[in-house]
Structure formats: C-alpha cells, structure tokens
C-alpha cells in the first residue's frame, strides 16, 4: 500500500466520522447552554436538565417508552429467535417462501406503510389503539431484526454440537436449552438490545397506533420539535444518547474482553504445544 492511498484512507475516515459525530456533539454541548436561544452560547448551565425532571409529561412519556421497549423487545426476541431457527433449520416446508418474505420485508418496508396497515388491522378487529397496540406494532417491526441477528449467529454454529447432544441421549427440546441457546445467547442479547433501541426510537409506527395515555417519548419530542428548537429537547436527547452509548459500549467491551481472553488462552495452548 503506498503513501498516497493511505493518506486518502485517513482523510476519508476523519471526514466521515466527523460528519457522523459533530452534529451529535453540538447537540450535547448546547444542552448545557444557559441561553434559551439554541444557537447563542450563554454560558454553562444545567437548568434544562432540572426543568426536564419537573416536566411530568416528559417523564410519563419516557416511562411509557421504556415499558413499550422492554415488553416489545422481549416478545420480539422470542418470536425473532423462533423465526431464525425455522429459517435456519427447516429448509423445506409449505409456505417457507412466504414466511421468509414476511420475516425480511419489514427490514426495508417504509414505516408509514407498516404503521398505517397495522392501525387498520386494529380498527378492523376492534382492538383499542394505545399501549398494547404500540407493543404489538413494535414487536412485529423488530422481530425481523432479531431474526436477522440471531440467524447470522446460527449460521456460524457447528450443527454437530447439537447432534453430539442428541447422540449422548439429550432430547431435542432439552438440547435447545442446554446447547443451542447458550451458544447463540450473544446474538439473542444483541437482538434484544437492537429491538429495544428500535422501539425507543420509533416515531412513525407509534404515532399511527398510539392512543390516549400512551404517548411515547419520540411522539412527545416530535411535537416539541414542531414547535421549535429548545434546549430542553437537547437535554432529553443528551440523556438518551448517553444511556444508549453507555449500554452499547459496555456490551461491546464485555464481548470484546471475553473474545480477547479466549484468544489469549488459545495462544497459550498453542505455545505450550
């Protein structure tokens, strides 16, 4: 690799990551702005965070969002893991093509379509819009992401591990819980986290399916944004960003550390001959 190309690489990485991160940094910095005007720096202050804590509507919305997120992510993880197992294991059954289509389509389906169509279903079957409608909608949306993540883990799983368990007298369902699940667990956990953050993030689908008392944080933020840019929104955003960033970084550091330890052990064995 010659010098000029590596210069090119470094430059594109620096500009690329600056583009990704500078807007978020600005957002965070201005959440500590004393001035009400978002673009004018009026000194450091945490007053917007204090105001946030006293804004009951926002706290309620946050609470709804977290509950929707946890419940729908858990449902989606169970359903998505099942879907991934079906797609990985059962190569041939009637309706497999339809099934894989239904599993992958929500990945790219515009949210307005998913949101509207689910709403019409709920109306059709007389199911009240609100908390549980949003939970079901988010489960449906995020289970396909879980399925994709878990499936990529299943593909790398050595099938002879399960065969070995069967061979040693372990029945299939027990084999799943003793062997398969522990081994795909990192994928399942990653799937849950992805489902949770997607649920936390969703505005469009939630807007279609929400009802009284089920205002989620994105819906609340959206209505505030429509009224104008305020430091309070910056403060909520900063909290959300830090919570998610800490969670994601902690998870990846943990998995990285176990990976490193594993590699170290393997190297030690190799050197010991």
């Amino acid at each position, binding site marked *: 690799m010659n010098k000029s190309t590596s210069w090119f690489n470094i430059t594109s990485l620096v500009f690329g990551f600056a583009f990704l991160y500078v807007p978020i940094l600005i957002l965070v910095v201005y959440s500590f702005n004393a001035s009400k005007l978002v673009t004018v720096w009026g000194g450091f202050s945490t007053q917007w965070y204090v105001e946030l804590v006293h804004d009951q509507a926002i706290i309620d919305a946050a609470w709804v969002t977290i509950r929707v997120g946890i419940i729908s992510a858990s449902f989606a993880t169970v359903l998505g893991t099942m879907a991934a197992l079906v797609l990985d294991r059962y190569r041939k059954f009637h309706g497999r093509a339809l099934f894989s289509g239904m599993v992958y389509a929500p990945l790219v389906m515009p949210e307005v379509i998913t949101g509207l169509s689910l709403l019409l279903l709920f109306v059709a079957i007389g199911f009240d819009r609100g908390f549980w409608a949003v939970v079901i909608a988010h489960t449906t949306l995020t289970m396909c992401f879980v399925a994709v993540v878990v499936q990529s883990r299943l593909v790398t799983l050595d099938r002879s591990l399960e065969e070995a368990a069967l061979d040693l007298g372990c029945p299939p369902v027990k084999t799943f819980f003793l062997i398969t699940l522990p081994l795909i667990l990192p994928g399942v956990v990653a799937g849950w986290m992805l489902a949770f953050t997607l649920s936390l993030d969703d505005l469009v689908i939630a807007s279609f399916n929400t009802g009284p008392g089920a205002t989620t944080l994105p819906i609340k933020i959206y209505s505030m944004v429509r009224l104008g840019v305020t430091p309070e929104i910056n403060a909520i*955003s900063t909290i959300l960003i830090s919570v998610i960033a800490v969670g994601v970084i902690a998870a990846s550091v943990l998995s990285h550390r176990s990976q490193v330890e594993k590699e170290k052990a393997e190297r030690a064995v190799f050197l010991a001959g």
Partner: protein
Amino acid sequence: MAERWTQDVKPFLAKWALVAVPYLWSLLFFLAPFLIIFKISLSQTAIAMPPYVPVIGGLGDFLAKLSDFTFDNYVFLTEDPLYYSAYLSSLRIALVSTILLLIVGYPIAYGMARAPKSLRNALVMAVILPFWTSFLIRVYAWIGILKPEGLITIALQSLGILGPDEQIHVYNTEIAVFIGIVYSYLPFMVLPLYAALEKLDATLLEAAADLGCPPTKSFWVITFPLSLPGVIAGCFLCFIPIVGEFVIPDLLGGSETLMIGKTLWAEFFNNRDWPVSSAVAVVLLIILVVPIVIFQNQQKKA
C-alpha cells in the same frame, strides 16, 4: 402408546409449534394488515371511520361494510397532480440520496477495510453507534445547524465569508433533506460496503500489482467489481426506506419538499381520509415491490 408419544408426536408438535408461532404472528400482524389496507383503499370515503372512534362492531360487520368497493380513490390519486408529483419527487430524492450515500460511504468503508486489523472492530462500532441513537434526535440535531440563524450561518459570519446580515438558506429546502438523509442512512450504506471490502483478499491486489496493474486501475478492475454485492445491498437498504421517508422531509424539508411519506401522513392525520391514505400506501407498495423482491433475492444469495 407412551412410547409413540415421546418418539413421534412430541417432536412433531415441538417442530410444528416452532414454525406456527412466528408464522401466525407474521400472518396476523404483517400480511393481514396489507390485505386490509388494500381492501380499504377500495372503499368509499363516506364509510371511512374517523380516527379514535371505531364504529365497526366486528370483523364480519367490517368486511360486510366494505363489500361494495370502488376505484374512486385511485382515480382521485391520478386526478390530483399532488400525488403524482409526490411519488416522482420521492423516487428522485431517494435515487439522488442513494447515489450521494454511495459517494460518501464508499471512501469511509474503504478506509475502514484498509485500516489496521486491531482498529477495525472499533471503527465498525463507531459507525454503528450513531445508528443506535434516536433517528429523530439525529435529524433534530441538524435543525440547529442548518437554520438561517443556525450554526453554519454563525460559523460563516465569524469567518467573514458571510456579511453580518446575510444568512444561509438551506433549512426547509431539498438540500437540507439530502443532508439529513445522507447523515441518517450512512451506516446502512457503509456497513454492507465494509463487509464486502473487508472480505476482499489483499493478495489479489498484490497479484494485480505483480502483473503490472497500477493501484488506481486495480481499484476499478479488482476492488470495485468484487465489492459490488456490498454496493447493491447498501443501495437497496437505503433506497427502499428513503422512498417512504417521513421524518426527514417533514423536519428539514419544509413545505416546498414533496415526498409521499409526508403526503400519506398529512392525508391520514390532517385530512383524516383513511381510504385515500390507504390508496396512497398501496401505490407506494406496488412501486416498491420490485426493489423489495430484488433485495430479498439478494439477501437469500448472501
């Protein structure tokens, strides 16, 4: 009998349940809604239900009321140039943004794939991290930057490029929409590209160099063709959802940006015309069926 239960029936039931549960869920909450949306798009506006007040008793009653269907809503879509130009404008914006994403994303993915191995995982993490943070917040962040009295104006004024009374008018234009889309969808473009480029065997480039091919040429004859699966995946992963995008044009595009996601939203929430918004969704779905099917086949091959 008990033997038969544990040997034949139980595994069969377990397998059946494993398939049936996610299958039924998807049928009920993913496929059935599409059939309903299609049905409603063919119904009279007159029997459309106002939001929040479902006037329909049961499913049978609901379907019975819809039995006399009409193409009026679709005819309406063709009569009003608003819809027609919203579809075209959505496709145009999606196409241009996808190309922009490819131009912006490729060098980043390339730089990541050529970075030292020890750094690569951290770089992938760094690309994914913004994706985990709220989409809405990331779009919102740009409002403060792009507004006429926002940070870009302030920065350019303090550099003396703009006079004290001059302002940058990007906010509420299509340019702002492009910026917002490229920013929000960048991870979806970079990650598939990176996956394809990272797999590329470095000895192929050495072999090309050994056979007398200069680096810039070997990029076009070796690297780029071999990264095509990533290019295709990235483009579809961006293009399809961008066509139906709502938040970005709504928050950054202002009234002059026409996109079908916004039109549908307005039709539903402001005009409360459910049959017309269903028709809008059905047409959007029909437009997107071809790219979605291509994308799925591509996924299956990968």
